[in-house]
């Protein structure tokens, strides 16, 4: 739930909101109850902007992406909310309508390229498939486009690699192939589900720079899901933090990550070893992630929060706007400012 959030644009991009998610809720029917996987998530992405979506496992970040593009597992359903792509709500659309949009308007890249690519189809054909199906290109035109895309994403020797199979590529190269496929019909926004988590640091660096240049040069927007905070800082302009299916903080990357206004974000930052700052000791977040079937009352983070007060246990915690275009769900966010003192700067 957002108060005063809809319509407020922020940051990079040449203007215009490409994607707006309003109060999205996803429920999964499981044997032990209904899992509230995504419970009221709202965000916007401007043209050419990269927005990060961070959280740990079970926070609902991947489910949010899948709900946006409509590839939820059969047990999961969007129970309320809207996903407005260029003003059109995707939620009520049928699968065949969605298929016309997936590719030309919105596409997705995944964490494991080996399972996302067809192992028995040559890579060039996989890249060319989108333009042939969605844009009506002829075989030759599509092949030309595929070669151009392969060059764009930095695959060396594209003419030869066109006819190669996915298993002949390294992990980083496969990820580039996946990006090429995602770009093939010139979508407005690409959803990225932890695409660099399984990659080596040096390869991750290459892929992140590639994505950044794509945003800058073709104006494509990104939603980048990850659990790795510095990666978000490297790529995105704005970031949203998820916990237990809800958004707990949202704003510009440097504000949220360097000067958090929610104890969970603060906890994430303080518990992760950072190559730049060496702290006396890492401060882990006590406890464990909440049950999504019966989450804690009031603020979902309250059982683990060092600043918990009585109202946190009972009051609902929607995102509220703070000055500077940032949002937090914490009722006592000022406590975070006080707690940032222990960081030693090199």
């Amino acid at each position: 739930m957002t108060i005063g959030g809809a319509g407020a644009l922020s940051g990079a991009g040449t203007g215009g909101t490409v994607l707006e998610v309003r109060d999205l809720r996803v429920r999964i029917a499981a044997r032990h109850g209904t899992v509230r996987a995504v419970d009221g998530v709202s965000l916007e992405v401007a043209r050419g902007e990269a927005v990060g979506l961070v959280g740990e496992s079970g926070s609902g970040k991947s489910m949010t992406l899948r709900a946006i593009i409509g590839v939820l597992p059969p047990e999961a359903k969007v129970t309320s909310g809207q996903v407005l792509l260029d003003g059109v709500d995707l939620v009520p659309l049928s699968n065949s309508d969605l298929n016309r949009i997936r590719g030309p308007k919105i596409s997705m890249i995944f964490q494991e390229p080996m399972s996302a690519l067809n192992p028995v189809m040559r890579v060039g054909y996989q890249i060319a498939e989108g333009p042939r199906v969605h844009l009506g290109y002829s075989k030759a035109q599509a092949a030309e486009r595929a070669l151009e895309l392969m060059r764009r994403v930095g695959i060396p020797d594209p003419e030869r690699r066109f006819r190669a199979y996915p298993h002949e590529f390294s992990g980083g190269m496969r990820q580039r192939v996946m990006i090429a496929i995602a770009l093939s019909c010139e979508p407005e926004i690409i959803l990225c589900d932890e695409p660099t988590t399984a990659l080596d640091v040096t390869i991750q660096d290459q892929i992140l720079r590639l994505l950044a240049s794509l945003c800058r040069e073709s104006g494509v927007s990104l939603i980048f899901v990850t659990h790795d905070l510095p990666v978000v800082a490297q790529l995105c302009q704005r970031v949203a933090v998820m916990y237990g299916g809800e958004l707990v903080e949202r704003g510009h990357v440097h504000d949220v990550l360097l000067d958090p206004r929610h104890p969970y974000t603060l906890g994430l930052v303080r518990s992760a070893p950072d190559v730049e700052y060496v702290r006396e000791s890492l401060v882990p977040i006590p406890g464990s992630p909440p049950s999504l079937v019966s989450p804690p009352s009031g603020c979902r983070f309250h059982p683990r929060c060092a600043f918990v007060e009585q109202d946190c246990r009972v009051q609902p915690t929607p995102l509220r706007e703070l000055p500077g275009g940032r949002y937090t769900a914490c009722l006592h966010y000022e406590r975070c400012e006080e707690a940032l003192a222990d960081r030693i700067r090199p």
Partner: protein
Amino acid sequence: MSAISADGLMAVERQVAPRSVRRWYRQPALAFGVVLLGLIVIAAVLGPLLSPYNPITQNLGQTLLGPSAHHLVGTDQLGRDTFTRLLYGLRNDLRIAFLAVVSPFCIGVVLGSISGYFGGWVDAVIMRLVDIVVAFPFYVLVIALVFVLGPGQRSIYIAITLVGWVSYARIIRSEILVAKRQDYVLAAQSGGLSAVRIMARHLLPNVVSQAIIYGMSDIVQDILAIVALGYFGLGIPPPTPDLGSMINDGQNFMTTHWQLTTFPGLVVVLVGLSLSLIGDGLADIIRPGQA
């Protein structure tokens, strides 16, 4: 999931019951199979008590009677009560089939483990043995062996053991090939545990479930093998009741007394059905239940 106790140490969640045991009766197929097999086994065990007749004594004055209050399924061509013979035949066949699975299971599991765990030339030798046996169809080989060894229970056991171990060996070997790559095996090796101990205590309990499930269908296969042997006259020698020979003998009376051949067949089908259901049900439970 876990609670933090007062001094900051983590307490462990207490589980109500292991998932697999808690749910077996909720699976209709498995439950049905278990119940059916239970009834069959009870019938077999209580056989002698359920019928006053002797299955072997001939009574030539009472041949080929139809079903009646005295003879629930009538009598056969030698005056013996068919119902009694069904019960005793079931008893014999079940006993032989269950026992006939035990030796192949043991031999196959041991050889398969050694083959999978050690690899190298040991694996090569054992697998070539497997290849040789597998080259022949199961029934052909069993029947041929029994023919050579002479009909009788002992021959059936030997034949089935010599032919049947290979399936278990292959199953266990492929499971172990995968399982031995798990870190917990490396951890056990790092802990200085001997290979035998690792195979027996660490690997087998994790992989033997597949062999057990296969064993269920193997029992069915063995029953059919015994039936087939009986059909060819190579099974349990008469006058001991045996479902296969009953089917064979009853063939001659198909048109007039069809019950003599179809009822034994029906019993075989029911046994096979119950074991299959149990095997499938176990497979469903064991797979998701495994951590």
